[in-house]
């Protein structure tokens, strides 16, 4: 049982990180950036590149990867999201297509640069194995899970307790009204994509030692992150945390106690039940409208 929980939490942590990036971009823009999974994978490849190929010091590798992630996030906004705001008749759902397009392009670029064979991303920390509830857990697992817990909670607090965060919520609620109140939605949008890119790339350095750097992994991560978000509630960082962990745990338990064939089915059944009972997900709140 212990190992099922541990492996479920580790798997869930990966989805939480992707879901957090999705929420980060969705809050001030209403856009689900389906390239977020590919950005995470890009962080894994950069970790491999800097640490294994170049031999860069870890702190510098973190910094360069964070900057690269921010740059990719900004490019994503400029290429796949912003132009659609200028197109008459374009809807926010069109960005699903464009961000999937960016994801596909990124995967292709990774393939050209690093090939499609798995690359091992080194973990610079200790290699000792700890025991938790009688099961093995490695330092990289601890780092990944810590990041997956701290990042959404910190972002939740930031959104709730800072003016900039409140502005994000306001834009999510009503973009036009926010603009009229002086909120610079373009800056928020760029900032959100840059922050999500940074988070995704750094998370890639943490997930890479576990998953390896593989170009095609991005799609699976994006899908898992999206399901986590749907479970947890769109626009809620803590909901994404709960949703991601649930996806990981249910997937792991279904695999262990039923069959791996049913792991995806188990997750989707959970999603259906959740949405039937709470259409906004665990972390979403019902909208009230006075008539």
């Amino acid at each position, binding site marked *: 049982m212990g*190992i*099922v929980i*541990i*492996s*479920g939490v*580790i*798997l869930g942590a*990966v989805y939480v990180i992707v879901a957090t990036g999705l929420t980060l971009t969705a809050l001030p823009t209403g856009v689900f950036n389906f390239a977020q999974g590919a950005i995470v994978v890009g962080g894994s490849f950069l970790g491999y590149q800097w640490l294994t190929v170049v031999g860069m010091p870890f702190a510098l590798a973190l910094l360069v990867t964070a900057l690269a992630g921010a740059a990719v996030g900004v490019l994503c906004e400029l290429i796949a999201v912003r132009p659609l705001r200028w197109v008459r008749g374009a809807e926010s759902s069109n960005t699903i297509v464009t961000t999937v397009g960016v994801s596909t392009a990124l995967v292709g670029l990774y*393939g050209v640069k690093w*090939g*499609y*064979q*798995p690359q*091992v991303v080194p973990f610079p920390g200790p*290699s000792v*194995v700890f025991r938790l509830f009688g*099961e*093995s*857990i490695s330092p990289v697992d601890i780092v990944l899970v810590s990041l997956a817990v701290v990042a959404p909670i910190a972002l939740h607090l930031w959104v709730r307790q800072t003016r900039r965060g409140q502005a994000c919520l306001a834009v999510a609620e009503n973009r036009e009204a926010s603009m009229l109140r002086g909120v610079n939605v373009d800056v928020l949008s760029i900032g959100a994509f840059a922050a999500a890119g940074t988070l995704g790339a750094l998370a890639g350095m943490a997930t890479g030692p*576990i*998953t*390896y750097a*593989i170009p*095609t*992994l991005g*799609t*699976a991560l994006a899908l898992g992150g999206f399901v986590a978000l749907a479970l947890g509630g769109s626009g809620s960082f803590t909901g994404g945390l709960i949703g991601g962990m649930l996806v990981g745990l249910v*997937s*792991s*338990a279904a*695999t*262990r106690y039923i*069959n*791996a*064939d049913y*792991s*995806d089915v188990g997750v989707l059944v959970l999603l259906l039940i959740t949405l039937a009972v709470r259409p906004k997900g665990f972390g979403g709140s019902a909208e009230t409208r006075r008539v």
Partner: protein
Amino acid sequence: MRIPRRAASGLAASILVLSVGACSSSGSSSDTSSSSTGGTGASSSSASSSTINILVMADTTGPTKAYGSQELAGLMAAVNYYNNKGGIDGHKVVVTHISDNGDPATSASLLVNELSTNPGKFTMVYGGAEGTVIQALIPVIARYPVIAAAAGDDSLCSSVKTCPHQFSQVGPNALPQQTDATWMQSKGYKKVGILEEQIAFTESETPAFKADLTTAGISNSEATFTDSAVDLTAEMSQLKAAGAQAVFVLAVGPAAGYALKARAALNWNVPILFDDAASSFDITTLVSKSLYANSFQTLRPVCVATLASPAYKDLVANLPAGTKITLPANLVADGWDPIVMLDSAVTQAHSTNDQALTSALENLDAAGQSNPEYLLTPKLQFSATNHENIADVPGNFAIVPVQPIVNGQVAVGSKS
């Protein structure tokens, strides 16, 4: 070595092939490069040509480029080898390579274009080792006077009536699994766990392996996972709970690493045996040395330094400049052996005509069957029903401890 892809894409490709064929070929861009010596070699009749032209469809740009590049390197080494000796039966060999991005539909379309715009130019087509690509090429090749070689398996050509010019250097899919089951039996295991990646290739292997285990008196328990899985702890835990004494992993790429990590996470020192697909990659690059201890891989003898044929030295010596063997040597051998096969056929037939070559390959003489330059299998003898190599036997696989791959081979080659 066959590189699995989804069967669905193969079906789609086959449909597209028929469409392409029906509509004749349309212009398509291709990265065509001639290599080796000699001129263009174009002529209206391959039989009267002074050169032997070979068309190679190998992915050197797409998702399977790591494999395709190795196959092409092996093939070019063989071409260099024979050209340096004066050619095959006096004919210089010229290679035209087209990268198909590993996509069956693209490959078929490019092949139609190449064969229809250069009638009679090519003596042989090499379609690589990727199952769905080969399947997509078969209906095209059947319509042109050209022979084709591939390291495919028994599912590729069901009958010589539908693929009269297609020859497979290797035997049925189930062969390595027979070796694996025999190995399990020799170790005295009574219950084996099967960890299977849900892709078309491995799913086609598992039933045969289960049957072999049953024959050997070994029961089994199976856990499967999707190709998007990034952690196999739960699956391995399932096998541990089922009481498996050894685990057989049928997978490709990173899954081998996930399995070894899961075993360590479970603190379970069960022996792991990787199938031939999982073994087509240097598993030691995925995990630290302590994690791959007590694990084994299924390899062709060419991948084992102490078991490989002396001909492997010829391959290495004739590799194109700047080329390195980066994966297990069965991949370069996949490219090398078709040229050796062609040498056997042309030498026997004294002709490069497709009918004469087909007849020669169907009735290879003793010298052709046991050409010392063969690397994948020591002997080549084609089935009369589907042109697969019936001389490929379970003994043509070795099971050795997982070790680093250096120049395509593991250093220590004891048949564990």
